[in-house]
């Protein structure tokens, strides 16, 4: 027998249409082709879903950098003194320049806020920027236009404001983080909203974590499968599906209005610097967010507690520990990594929540940074919302920059969750 015929003999019998049984058409080639085409379609759709994420982030980054065209009311070059341009003048000369260009009464007011002698060069320079030069944004371009449409941009400048200043600006910068809110896009910052977000989140954790873990322990350790626990459990699942804005309505009616003496700090004497803001305080926001994330915290903590092996509990009980001793010394330490990971994920949801806080009554403008639970509040997502809602393009750029900061905050929270989990996991492996 030759090699080729042996090979032929090994081949499986072919099921061509011609030798199939009566009425049966395997039609394999066409079916396989269809399967392959459909597989490609499935793959493309999945890639499309990933592309959405890419497009989302690209559009934010694209808006965060780019050329800005500003027109100054007074040309900074004309502000020289004793032959020195503005940038080279010392503090004293800058103060004199400022005094020449603003009204005497306004200068006195500035002097009263903080004496000119006590201000350093940077402060004075930014004051001159704001009060004398008064640069107005005429147009902004996004990153892709700045790179590929430089000629158009220059043409626009020549046509509309030849004397204007055109420069490349990263909207994400140190000033964005350190400046307070402002109606001038060039100097507006997110210091207040960031502090507000962090304070709100801090109080949210302090409220939601103990409540959530406590509820999970009760459900998992004390009343497994009783009628009462089933009611609570169903209730928790249903709460997890309630739209966040409904929690905002509850917060408005109950925490802001109903518990006003408490949430404005009046019962603790005084309240914040603005009289407790009628209950529209950081505390109200935190309480609202806490009950919003509570179902998620509970469900995650339950999963974590369920994963603790039964043998651990039994051996603890067998040596005479009470139920609570068992939970405190064995169940909680064994599950704390997963409990905390779940909690951090829930908190990162709270950090991005906007709608309920708008309803609860975030302030549109903060004159002072929030300092404690009874301060008026605004948060980073709310600032983003307000800037996005403005018609001027430069505020869209600011919003994009603020979004990058928010995404960075969320990313670091999630990274913290992962580090936390790995740390505890390592300790467990070492047997502590």
């Amino acid at each position, binding site marked *: 027998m030759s090699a080729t015929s042996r090979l032929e003999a090994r081949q499986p019998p072919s099921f061509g249409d011609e030798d199939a049984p009566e009425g049966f058409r395997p039609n394999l080639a066409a079916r396989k082709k269809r*399967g392959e085409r459909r597989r490609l379609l499935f793959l493309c759709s999945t890639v499309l879903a990933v592309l959405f994420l890419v497009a989302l982030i690209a559009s934010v980054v694209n808006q965060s950098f780019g050329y800005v065209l500003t027109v100054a009311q007074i040309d900074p070059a004309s502000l020289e003194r004793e032959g020195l341009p503005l940038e080279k003048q010392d503090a004293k000369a800058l103060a004199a320049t400022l005094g020449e260009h603003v009204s005497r009464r306004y200068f006195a007011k500035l002097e009263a806020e903080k004496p000119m002698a006590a201000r350093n060069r940077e402060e004075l320079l930014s004051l001159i920027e704001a009060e004398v030069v008064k640069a107005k944004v005429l147009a902004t371009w996004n990153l892709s236009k700045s790179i590929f449409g430089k000629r158009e941009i220059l043409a626009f400048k020549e046509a509309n404001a030849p004397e204007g200043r055109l420069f490349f600006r990263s909207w994400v910068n140190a000033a964005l983080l350190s400046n307070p809110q402002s109606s001038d896009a060039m100097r507006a910052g997110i210091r207040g909203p960031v502090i507000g977000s962090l304070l709100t989140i801090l109080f949210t954790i302090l409220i939601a974590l103990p*409540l959530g873990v406590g509820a999970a322990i009760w459900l998992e350790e004390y009343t497994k499968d009783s009628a009462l626990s089933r009611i609570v459990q169903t209730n928790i699942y249903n709460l997890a599906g309630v*739209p966040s*804005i409904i929690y*905002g309505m509850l917060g408005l009616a109950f925490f802001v209005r109903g518990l006003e003496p408490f949430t404005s700090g009046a019962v603790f004497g005084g309240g914040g610097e603005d009289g407790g803001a009628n209950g529209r305080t950081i505390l109200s926001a935190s309480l609202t967010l806490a009950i919003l994330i509570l179902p998620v915290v509970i469900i995650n903590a339950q999963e974590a507690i369920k994963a603790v092996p039964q043998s651990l509990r039994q051996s603890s009980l067998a040596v005479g520990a009470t139920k609570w001793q068992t939970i405190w010394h064995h169940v909680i330490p064994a599950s704390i990594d997963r409990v905390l990971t779940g909690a951090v994920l829930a908190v990162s949801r709270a950090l991005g929540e*906007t709608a309920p806080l708008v309803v609860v009554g975030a302030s549109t403008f903060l004159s002072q940074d929030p300092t404690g639970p009874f301060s008026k509040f605004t948060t980073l997502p709310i600032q983003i919302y307000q800037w*996005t809602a403005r018609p001027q393009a430069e505020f*869209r750029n600011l919003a994009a920059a603020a979004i990058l900061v928010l995404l960075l905050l*969320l990313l670091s929270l999630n990274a913290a969750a992962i580090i936390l989990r790995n740390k505890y996991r390592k300790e467990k492996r070492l047997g502590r």
Partner: protein
Amino acid sequence: MSDSGALSVREPSFDPDRPRSAVPDLGRRRRPAEALIQSFLFLCASVSVLTTIGIVVTLGTESYSFFKEVSFLEFFTGRVWQPAIEKFGILPLLAATFTTSLWAMALALPLGLVVAIYLAEYAPERVRDVLKPILEVLAGIPTVVYGYFALTTVTPVLRSVLGEGNVEVYNTLSAGLVMGILILPLIASMCEDALSSVPLSLREGAYAMGATKLEVSTRVVVPAAFSGLAAAFILGLSRAVGETMIVAIAAGAGPNFTLNPLRSAETMTGHIVRISGGDLSYDSIDYTSLFAIAILLFVTTLLLNLISRWIISRYREVYE
């Protein structure tokens, strides 16, 4: 002091009738601290029940005072929502919510199902390990960012594709499509769970009959997981109905009775956010009208969630 004192175990109290024993009966000892802790934990759990009661009571009482002034008939059949002239017909807001949800589902439902099929049936392990975290990231991005994306990127694209004159700056189509992107990861991951829980034996049976991979996936696995898929779709719809920031930013500010996705309109959630963001007097009918909208929203999403859970428990195929 007796000899047993040397054991250093002190009995809680002396009882002359009880037989003296060296080991105290710890099991019967009263432990007030344990009971205290247990009741504290119970309180923690009851907070969630209190939240539900709180929602029902506050929404109920405020909308009760609203419906004292506006009849049910006017509320549900009125075609104009203009609090300034005391017109409170929910239909414009309802129509906008319907339009945005429809477009969201039109994008998220087929795409989510296909992504789930790919992940569960086709994707090699390594590809899945990369794709699933990406979808999770997509799900973790705050909705206000999606709103920004809709207004600054999707709307200009729609306007340049469909013509500037045809598409308004604020439109429900852009908001709806971006909402679809938002709920896509939710639907995809729930569908994937449903598909993955179909037992391997079903697939193997189909392969043994000579089915191709596509036929196994779409004619065996998908029908077997149908209840889970349906539950995922309904849950996704519930998310779409309750979604707020995207529509508040991109769909428009002002009720408009239209089903045309290229025009601006305000959804129920968008209206609540816009009105409550401004100065609002607690005694006004504007304030109570928000609660009437909210209770409708609450009941709708609750019903959708209950249906979703009911489908899972009722139609789940139970495999041994």
